[in-house]
């Protein structure tokens, strides 16, 4: 098909590359890059790293050299900034209308959307590991400064449970973003719903029971502390269906059918 010389080509010899459909791994790389290549994203990632280091160090000063406690302290930043980063990564193409370009290069929208959901999840895994990497020296330094023995109390299940919790909560943020396709609306919904469920849990026993089965923020509790029973797992499953799978599915179907403007 491409036997035409368009001006400005042919100098580097790349024109011998055969046209081929865009492979999924390339979409994944592009979407991962898009998550971090804007000015606002760079600022947020910087803030997130700074917050992690500062909050872990401060917790060390206050609570003493306990590795598990120091590591999971990073959850404060991860519960606030990471959802925002994830939501912006999912909605950015729609709010800035660069979806016109994205879906012209790759009209198979489902593949683009799938590639878009994965980088924030991977970033969350990386952030969880980063917290551990920061918490280890923080624990050692705190122990040395305070002159008390360090508690290297973290276990593999605890670390996995905490990481999985972070990842699932980001999955919920992604689902809301996909459903609403609007950053402010998705961020507001994510946090307001969290507050409302908190209220429901505290107001009545019924509210508490419903939250356990429907709200992911409630249902992940036992997972975070790696004390998951079969009952908890069942609750987590239904909460995932309600808070992640359902909004995600509705959002994806709509995005596949939508007119891109």
């Amino acid at each position: 098909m491409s036997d035409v010389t368009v001006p400005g080509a042919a100098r580097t010899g790349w024109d011998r590359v055969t046209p081929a459909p865009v492979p999924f791994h390339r979409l994944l790389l592009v979407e991962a890059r898009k998550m971090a290549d804007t000015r606002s994203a760079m600022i947020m990632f910087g803030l997130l790293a700074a917050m992690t280091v500062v909050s872990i160090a401060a917790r060390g000063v206050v609570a003493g050299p306990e590795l598990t406690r120091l590591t999971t302290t990073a959850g404060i930043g991860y519960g606030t900034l990471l959802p925002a980063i994830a939501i912006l990564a999912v909605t950015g193409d729609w709010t800035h209308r660069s979806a016109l370009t994205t879906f012209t290069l790759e009209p198979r929208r489902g593949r683009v959307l799938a590639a878009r959901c994965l980088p924030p999840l991977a970033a969350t895994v990386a952030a969880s590991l980063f917290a551990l990497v920061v918490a280890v020296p923080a624990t050692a330094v705190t122990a040395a400064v305070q002159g008390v023995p360090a508690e290297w109390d973290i276990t593999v299940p605890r670390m996995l449970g905490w990481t999985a919790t972070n990842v699932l909560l980001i999955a919920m943020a992604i689902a809301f973003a996909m459903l609403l396709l609007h950053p402010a609306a998705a961020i507001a919904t994510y946090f307001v719903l969290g507050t409302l469920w908190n209220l429901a849990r505290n107001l009545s026993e019924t509210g508490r029971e419903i939250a356990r089965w429907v709200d992911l923020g409630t249902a992940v509790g036992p997972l975070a502390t790696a004390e998951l029973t079969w009952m908890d797992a069942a609750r987590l499953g239904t909460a995932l269906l309600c808070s992640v799978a359902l909004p995600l599915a509705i959002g994806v179907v709509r995005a596949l059918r939508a007119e891109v403007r």
Partner: protein
Amino acid sequence: MIEFKSVCKDYKGVRALDEVSFTVEPGSVTGFLGPNGAGKTTALRILLGLSRPTSGTATIFGRPYRELEAPGWHVGALLDANAQHPGRTGREILTLGAMTLGLPRSRVDEVLELVGLTEREARRIFRGYSLGMRQRLGIAHALLARPRVLVFDEPANGLDPQGIHWLRGLLRELADAGCAVLLSSHLLAEVERIADRVVVIGRGRVLAQGTLDELGRGRDLERVFLELTAEADRRAA
């Protein structure tokens, strides 16, 4: 190369496109003209698979856009120069396109040079770009994979006289190299100087198409355009 066959598009009972049929052949620049709201952008969106026609087909190389093997390689498009993330640099926007298509980064430098954006301009974020720079960036993006089909929506908007002169030369060069170029515009004088053929659309219908000579028979394009669209408005009223 580009073919619209009886394309209709309804929005909530309102007919935005009505039996639109025309073709764009390789080696030519076709101007797509019409007043605001005539359906130009809708037609281009349908052509690029961003919107589905209610009936009819729009094809490139005989296939609907979504069924092309590697559309980004064969079709370059600029639908809206402003539709980019404001916090991304121009270079980054092009790099994302080159990455998606599997092109080497050196191609980004080539297209930047081709559209006359300097290295300094390319490193600035999109928010600060003038409309003319945005058009150049969008055109650079469309040319990344040296496509044989080019679709531009109002590419001359915001370009200064030098820019328009440059665009005219570029489009001519592309057409002479065998590309099929479809550009929508309401800058009639420009289209008159660039296009080989024109398709005039008004109220969702193709009002006239052909070479400038066939349409004009000695009159200038503005006159023809105003007569055609006024007549369409009268019929609709």
